[in-house]
């Protein structure tokens, strides 16, 4: 009985993926037929060979995601190191400050960011988009940073100092190995935030920096099932792939307990 229920649930969850996949290889989907018909490789051909924008947008998104993952993680972990030594009673105030971008409605936030980007001539550039994505991701990386730094027992640092470990070696030999899984985890989360974002990239990138989601948006808006499904499959596969690969590595490396948004 349990196996049957499990099977039904797996089917229900995978149904959207299956239907999406079918829509990328079948072109005819007239109401009320349940599944699409007429086999075609036009959409995938379009993706890989005919429309150069498609591969380009994937590469653009990957590049932006990697840049944002790296830079947000560095900024967030620097702040996390400083904030992890906060006293307990200032906990909420600190959390509010570094999470500020999460408590401002995104549309209002990014129109303000856009004004500044115009002044600095960062609009339509990769730098501008990465900076905008950093505003969105640093709250998360800081939070992960704090929770990983808090997980390091203070005795460990004291012992290292007692036996003569200086700042650089302390960082390289004690702290870095302990926070490496956190760095990876934060990097993957910030990568995903950037990779999945539509609004900031469209506004700041201004049609010059074409991301995967910026390309997908008009197809969905026009209910172009074939192209939406093709881009959607690529989108989701990269997302899930990145997340589970880093999760696997992170789990293997983790040695400290961490709790997010305490």
């Amino acid at each position: 009985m349990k196996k049957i229920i499990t099977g039904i649930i797996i089917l229900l969850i995978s149904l959207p993926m299956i239907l999406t996949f079918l829509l990328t290889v079948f072109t005819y989907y007239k109401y009320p037929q349940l599944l699409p018909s007429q086999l075609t490789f036009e959409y995938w051909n379009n993706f890989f060979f005919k429309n150069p924008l498609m591969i380009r947008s994937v590469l653009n998104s990957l590049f932006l995601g990697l840049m944002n993952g790296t830079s947000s993680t560095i900024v967030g972990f620097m702040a996390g190191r400083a904030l992890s030594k906060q006293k307990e009673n200032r906990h909420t105030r600190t959390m509010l400050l570094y999470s500020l971008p999460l408590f401002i409605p995104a549309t209002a936030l990014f129109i303000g960011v856009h004004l500044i980007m115009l002044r600095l001539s960062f609009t339509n550039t990769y730098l501008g988009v990465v900076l905008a994505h950093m505003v969105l991701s640093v709250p998360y990386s800081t939070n992960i940073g704090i929770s990983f730094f808090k997980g390091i027992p203070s005795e460990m640092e004291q012992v290292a100092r007692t036996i003569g470990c200086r700042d650089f070696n302390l960082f390289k030999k004690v702290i870095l190995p302990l926070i490496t899984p956190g760095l990876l985890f934060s990097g993957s989360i910030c990568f995903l935030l950037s990779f999945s974002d539509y609004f900031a990239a469209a506004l700041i990138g201004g049609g010059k920096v074409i991301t995967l989601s910026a390309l997908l948006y008009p197809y969905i808006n026009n209910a172009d099932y074939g192209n939406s499904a093709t881009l959607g499959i690529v989108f989701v596969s990269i997302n899930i792939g990145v997340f589970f690969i880093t999760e696997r590595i992170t789990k293997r490396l983790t040695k400290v307990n961490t709790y997010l948004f305490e």
Partner: protein
Amino acid sequence: MGKRIIHKKTILLLLPILLLYGVFIGGGLLGVLFESLGYIPSLGLNNLTLEHYLDIFLDRRFIESLFFSLYIALASALISTILGVLIAYRLMITTNRLWRYMTDRVLQIGLILPYLYVVFLTMLFLGKTGFISRIFLNFSWISSLEDFPRFVFDPYGFGIILVYVLKGTPFIALFVLNIMSSISTTYHQVATTLGATESDILRKIYLPLAANTISWTSAILFTYDLGAFEVPYLLGTNKAVTLSSWLYSLYLNPHISEIPASMAMNILLLTIGALSVMIYRWVIKSILMGGR
């Protein structure tokens, strides 16, 4: 109060985040504030005025749009929070490892699916000509396309709320699961010995102890659902428009004379957003603490 010594190192470590927030959030909002007051020197507008705020307040559509936005945000954040907390608690007390593993995986996938893709799936499945409507017709549960209710592009925002709930529930569930697992199981065991039911244990032990995390993550979700642009824009109708999609179309308007109005709207969305999220979090927290 003792002397507060702030290390040079702390300041250096905090410098990047302060610069990032200061320039792009602080600077951006300052720019928006000035332009909303009609001060745009580059366009030759130098007078400070409140008329743009007044114009918006007197616009009946603004009030309608505001209530629609608040309704969407409140409904989706509340439903996601309730579902998320229940799933997290169920997942934590379950002894079936297979279920736990599978639910965990489903939640993670739900968390990382892009909003755009969930919008696409919602249209594909729940639209008038969507998959579910096709099933109904094939089984003759409905006689024509017209009998299938309008779930997306509907005036009540069902489609929008559905997408937010699908994305919001895993967010809440994973964070809450994380914090609930850190609560000592001793409380649970003692309460069980004293004859407490599972629902008592949830209400009297886990909810108050996890109240902080639940209320903050729920508040983040509320803000997101209030301020996101693409979901209501793709799944909404012309009749009921959220503030965020209205604001964005106003911002893209090429008429220079519309700039101060859009900036005033921006400030209003921001202020009302901040106020409502504060109230929202306070109410949620009070409910979770059970009046303590």
